[in-house]
């Protein structure tokens, strides 16, 4: 084989090589430094989180055998050999799952309604006054940063045990999350229709109603559906703190070591989440076409 590329003179090559290796060395050093800082942070975190590898290794068998246990019936045989026995409580569990779905549905819809009312004040291009925008933005931020289950804990004390607390917690959290997303959609809306309507002497409300809303509803619905998906998952654990839904059954089963019930309830939750994910995905595709999904 002949060499097609001519080689540079020795001296020039040496300087180029030196510069290259220097650049590489500098990059390597920076990477190494970053890795060292990261490793130090991890080590610190391991101490902080009381990580105990010995516990993990001695008890890791428990993790595997836990799945073994939850997949075994009281009689000793595998759960799928006797589905009737495994899912013995399916009527009750389906009812609780229905409650979970209702909690997330009512919560999401309420949250979306509040977010709809608030987001025009939070968007930069439609907010009537800067101080109002500031207040609404902080309010939404608060609503979405405090975890839903913390709201649920407090609401259980204020409104009593039961699904009401769960619905309100999900509604508040969804207001915060959707309010932000909605206002971002509004910020991307075309402002020319607004100018057109304002030029006819219309009020702020009419501008929103006839210029902004028609542009943004598809995006709103898409995000609300996505939120519903997330909220189904969230509602499945609301019962842990007494705020209704299937979580209540699950936490009892886990705490009381009703092993096969744990797997049966988990299975039903996972299947429900699958079905919701698939059907809302399908609905989004049907309603808004593929592009609407961002």
């Amino acid at each position, binding site marked *: 084989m002949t060499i097609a590329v001519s080689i540079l003179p020795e001296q020039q090559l040496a300087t180029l090589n030196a510069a290259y290796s220097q650049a590489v060395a500098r990059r390597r050093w920076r990477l190494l430094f970053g890795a060292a800082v990261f490793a130090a942070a991890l080590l610190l975190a391991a101490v902080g*989180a009381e990580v105990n590898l010995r516990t993990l290794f001695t008890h890791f068998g428990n993790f595997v055998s836990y799945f073994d246990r939850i997949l075994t019936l009281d009689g000793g045989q595998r759960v799928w050999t006797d589905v009737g026995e495994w899912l013995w409580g399916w009527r009750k569990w389906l009812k609780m799952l229905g*409650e979970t779905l*209702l909690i997330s549905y009512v919560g999401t819809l309420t949250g979306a309604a509040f977010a709809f009312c608030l987001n025009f004040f939070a968007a930069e291009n439609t907010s009537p006054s800067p101080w109002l925008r500031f207040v609404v933005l902080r309010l939404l931020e608060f609503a979405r940063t405090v975890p839903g289950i913390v709201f649920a804990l407090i609401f259980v004390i204020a409104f009593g045990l039961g699904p009401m607390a769960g619905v309100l917690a999900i509604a508040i959290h969804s207001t915060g999350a959707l309010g932000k997303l909605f206002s971002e959609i509004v910020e991307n809306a075309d402002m020319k229709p607004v100018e057109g309507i304002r030029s006819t002497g219309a009020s702020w409300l009419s501008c929103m109603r006839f210029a902004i809303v028609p542009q943004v509803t598809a995006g709103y619905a898409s995000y609300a559906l996505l939120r519903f998906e997330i909220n189904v998952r969230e509602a499945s654990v609301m019962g842990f*703190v007494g705020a209704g839904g299937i979580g209540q059954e699950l936490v009892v089963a886990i705490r009381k070591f009703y092993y096969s019930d744990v797997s049966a309830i988990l299975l039903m939750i996972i299947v429900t989440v699958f079905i919701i994910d698939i059907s809302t995905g399908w609905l989004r595709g049907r309603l808004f076409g593929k592009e609407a999904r961002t």
Partner: protein
Amino acid sequence: MGPQKVDTAEIRARYPDVFERPASARLATPAMIVAALGIFMYGLVDLDFSPSRFAAGLSQLGWISMMMIPPDPGTSLPIYLKALGETLSIALLGTTLAAIFALPVSLLAARNVVPNILRFPVRRFLDSIRGVDTLIWALVWINVVGLGPFAGVLAIAVSDFGAFGKLFSEAIEGADQKQVEGIRASGGSALHEIRFGLMPQVLPVIAGQVLYFIESNTRSATIIGIVGAGGIGLQLAEQIRVLEWQKVSFLILMILVAVAAIDFISGKLRFAIIGRRAVA
């Protein structure tokens, strides 16, 4: 321009769809709205919403908010700071562990790396892990390693494993195939293709996602203490149970400040790693 005489009949004849929409099309939207509201009302009834209960709860909530002011940690500030440190540790360790384990698995879930037959079960496996909430994983791990933050680390690690597996594999599927082909053409093995063809493309994306998850996991880590898996959630749940509202509001403020600080830092880091445009 003055009013113009419009020949309505002609326009009607030209655009029949606009003037004479079929009943099914006209009724679709109202029917959907009615159905949505119907389910909503049914939900309100089924879930025991009553105006009197709502009003009573609201006034109770008003009392609680009054009692929360001013936020005051009492003498427990050192304990709370330690709990906050625990929470941050849980988030950092859990996310890192999840990322380390998810990277090889995500290769198995990527369309351009493995055939469909192998991909399908891996995907469903990741989906099932994701379908189970972090709090449930926390309960399972408490059964294995006992109460405490270690269970929290493992819970975050497992539930994020499911999320990362999906996100990473999507990043890998989005990667440019030309680099891989180049490596193959020069005689590289499958491992070389991944190491030199895929990884340089996807690592910045993955790093951005991991940072983003550390951020959002700070939020999740604040709550897993509610079921006993360590961190600030444990303190929060305890103080709510004993109705120490001033401490509760202090703890909530601490969480807000911590989350804001982590948001700020990781936002800066993400910009540094993948540039402003890729993040937006």
